[in-house]
């Protein structure tokens, strides 16, 4: 199982701030694909991914227990 975190527009599109999903093995790219299929109303092209609170590349692997956050373009300040 992995923990997914949604924010801002994606949180609204998903209708939730977080969820846990079953996950055996795969990369960040695989998870983004799963999310894009699951929430087609949101465009993931500009989304970055953080695993365990660090930005990662799409090739990074995701392991059970990880926290995966989808980070839309930030707009703090």
């Amino acid at each position, binding site marked *: 199982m992995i923990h997914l975190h949604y924010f*801002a527009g994606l949180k609204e599109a998903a209708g939730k701030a977080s969820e846990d999903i079953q996950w055996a093995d795969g990369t960040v790219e695989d998870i983004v694909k799963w999310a894009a299929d699951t929430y087609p109303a*949101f*465009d993931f092209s500009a989304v970055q991914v953080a695993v365990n609170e660090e930005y990662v590349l799409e090739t990074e692997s995701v392991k059970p227990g990880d926290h995966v956050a989808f980070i839309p373009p930030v707009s703090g300040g």
Partner: protein
Amino acid sequence: MKPFEVTTEPLEPARYIEYVTHPGAGAVTLFAGTVREWTNGKRTMYLEYEAYVPMAEKKLAEIGVEIKQKWPGSRVAIVHRIGALSISDIAVVIAVSSPHRKAAYEANEYAIEQIKKVVPIWKKEMWEDGEEWIGDQSYKPGSE
């Protein structure tokens, strides 16, 4: 007081000026980002800020570390408020002290630029006739 924090509480700039002031400092700069009423001809009623809090605080602290490396002798505090903010409320405070003034200005401006690039915080503008998450996002509720 935490020098790198995301909070729902109103921000008090004076606390952060005091925090970075020390005998080695000759210059203190403070930036306060405030909620502006009019943007591109649209009137903002209020703003809603959201953050991935643990990662945002980590990133703010990392910016602090970078600044201390790039501008030796500096001290830094960076705090961001989240939740519903009214016009003129302070959303972000950056305080930097440094032995000399040039570094204090440069480091402060570096901090706000980094915040706008890497810190997971989002702003939603609430207008009279709608709302929108800022930052070029692609999901517009009601636009489906």
